[in-house]
Structures are given as structure tokens and as C-alpha cells.
């Protein structure tokens, strides 16, 4: 099977073009392109990379692409995959952003933005709800949620500091409450969905 820089780039470029709204559609897209059409990896492998992609910081779609690209052809594969997934997003935004200044002052565009702003808050609410379902599993995780929320909303603490505090608290908590390991999900369990 052809695994040249260009082929890998082209495949991920196609996936990047079809990704719309939230990253949650990436799994079926990769399933169709990488598993069914190209046969580069199998379903279980893809599932594993999907789960791993969520366990690494950064943009999940990019993480998965780098994992798969690296598996296919090492550094070259990783580079071509990430360029492929990012380029459509980059070009689309450059195009829109350069036209934006001319249209943004039109009053009907302002009205649309006003409405869409409310829609965005709704999307944030839905994303929070979905993350809540996946991440708040016991008293400790509930505490971390409210502590992060209060530090950010009331005290405007930098998100990076909150994330570092969360990492430390998780590791310390495991030391003082070793039985908690049963609750901590295995990274690969994410695959089930």
C-alpha cells in the first residue's frame, strides 16, 4: 500500500475538509478513510489512537492524526498527517478572516453574529454537559470540577495553572487513597463509544 508523504497528506487533508463543528465526527471519518478505503490500520488500532488522542493535551483531531501518521511512516508520516489535517482549517480561516473586516460592519451581519453568539454559548453548555458525563465520576472529580470553576470564574486564575494544580491533585490523591485506582478509567476504555 502506498504510504508516501503525499498520499498520507492527501488522506488527512480530505478528513480535515470534512470535519465540521466539534471534533466528535472524526472517528467515523477516519474509520471510512483509513480503515475501510486505505486499509492502513484496523478498527481496534484506530480505537486505541482515538482514546490515546484524548489523553494527550492539545487538539484531539491533531493528536490522533500524529499518532496514526507516526505509526504509518515515523516522523515523515506524522508530519504529513498533521499538515494534512491542519491545512484545510488554516486556509478556510485565512480566507474568511481576510474578508471579515469588510463585511463585519454591515448591520445584518451584526444581527446574525448577535444570534450566533447565543448559539455558541449553547454549544459551550452542551460541550460542558457532555464532558461532565464523562469526567465527574465520584466526590473527588466533583471537587476538582468546582475548584477549577471557582478559581477560573471568580479569581481569574490562568487556566494553565489550574491544569497543573489538577495534575498534582490527581497524583497526590492516588497516593493517599490508593483504592481509588479502581475508579480511575483505563485509558483505552474510551474506545467503547
Amino acid at each position, binding site marked *: 500500500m502506498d504510504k508516501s508523504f503525499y498520499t498520507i497528506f492527501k488522506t488527512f487533508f480530505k478528513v480535515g475538509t470534512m470535519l465540521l*463543528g466539534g471534533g466528535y465526527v472524526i472517528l467515523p471519518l477516519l474509520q471510512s478513510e483509513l480503515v475501510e478505503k486505505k486499509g492502513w490500520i484496523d478498527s481496534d488500532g484506530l480505537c486505541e489512537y482515538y482514546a490515546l488522542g484524548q489523553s494527550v493535551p492539545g487538539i484531539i483531531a491533531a493528536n490522533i492524526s500524529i499518532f496514526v501518521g507516526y505509526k504509518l511512516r515515523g516522523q515523515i508520516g506524522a508530519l504529513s498527517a*498533521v499538515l494534512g489535517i491542519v491545512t484545510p482549517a488554516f486556509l478556510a480561516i485565512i480566507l474568511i478572516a481576510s474578508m471579515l473586516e469588510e463585511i463585519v460592519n454591515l448591520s445584518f451581519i451584526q444581527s446574525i453574529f448577535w444570534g450566533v453568539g447565543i448559539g455558541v454559548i449553547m454549544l459551550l453548555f452542551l460541550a460542558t454537559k457532555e464532558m461532565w458525563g464523562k469526567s465527574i465520576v465520584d466526590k473527588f472529580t466533583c471537587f476538582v470540577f468546582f475548584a477549577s470553576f471557582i478559581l477560573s470564574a471568580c479569581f481569574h486564575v490562568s487556566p494553565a495553572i489550574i491544569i497543573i494544580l489538577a495534575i498534582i491533585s490527581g497524583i497526590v490523591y492516588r497516593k493517599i487513597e490508593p483504592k481509588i485506582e479502581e475508579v480511575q478509567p483505563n485509558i483505552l476504555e474510551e474506545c467503547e463509544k
Partner: protein
Amino acid sequence: MIYINLFLQFFHIGLFSFGGGYATLPFLYHIAEVQKWYTVKQLTDMIAISSITPGPVGVNVATFAGFATSGIFGAIIATTSVILPSYILVIIISKALEQFESNKNVRAAIYALKPAGCGLLAAVGIDMFVNNVNLLGMFLFAILFVVSMKQKRDPLFYLGISAVTGLLAGFLHITN
């Protein structure tokens, strides 16, 4: 030097954002408040456009914020530096995959990171709600909320309803 600062800001977003999709937003929101490279209102517009543009939302909105800060060169730096930590970490992890998956500290960290990412996103959502939503906005939000309770829908569905409502409200001069 704006470009170095831009690199550092977006690199730290890539390194610390957890939870995908909208996880970069708390960081971009913080930048709007502290660095003032763009306003919160501009960020809301960027998120809206990014949600209906091809590509991962996190990449779209990083490119956009970089462009808003210092044009096309800013966009290139922002996009590259938000991806760079992922690139480095994924390659390191790929080389030691089994140790990573079974490491107890990694699992404990992820266990605590997920609710923290969720709390950060909730804080942004509430802040945006309090600062941007007037009476008519609350009415629109309530409708969207009721619709979302009935069944799960595509993000584009909510943005579509919101855009049409905004357009109508604009014609009737009632958005403010």
C-alpha cells in the same frame, strides 16, 4: 516582540488544553482578558465562524486568533505553536506506548484533568452568558435549551436557528 509572545501563548495553550473541541477556549478567553490582543466579543464571533468552517474547531479558532492579533504571519505562528506540543508529546508517547498506557500516575493525572477541563469550560460559558446575553438572548437561549433536551442535534442546527433569529431580530430592531 509580538511574535515571540504569540508563540509562547499558543504553545502553552497546546500544552495545557485538555478535553478537545472547545478545550482551548478558556485559554483564548484568558488571553482576551489579559493580553487584550482581541476582545471577548471578537472571540465569540471567531468561535461561531470556527464552528461552521471545515477543520478541527481548535485549529480554526487558533488560526483566527493569531490572524486577529497580527495578520497572516500571526496566523501561521499561532497554528504552528498550538500544534507543536501535541507533535512532540505524541511522538515521545508513541515510542513508549505501553509504559504510558499503564502508568498509574498518568492515569491519576488524566482522572483529575478531565473534571478540571470541564470546570474551565463551564466558567467561560457562564461568563459569556452573563456578559453577552440580554433579555431577548435569554429567550433564544431558553428555546435552544428546550430543543436540546428533546433530542441530540448537530451544532450547525443550533447555530442555524440562532442566525435566523438574529437576522429577524435585526430587521425588527430589537437586538439591543
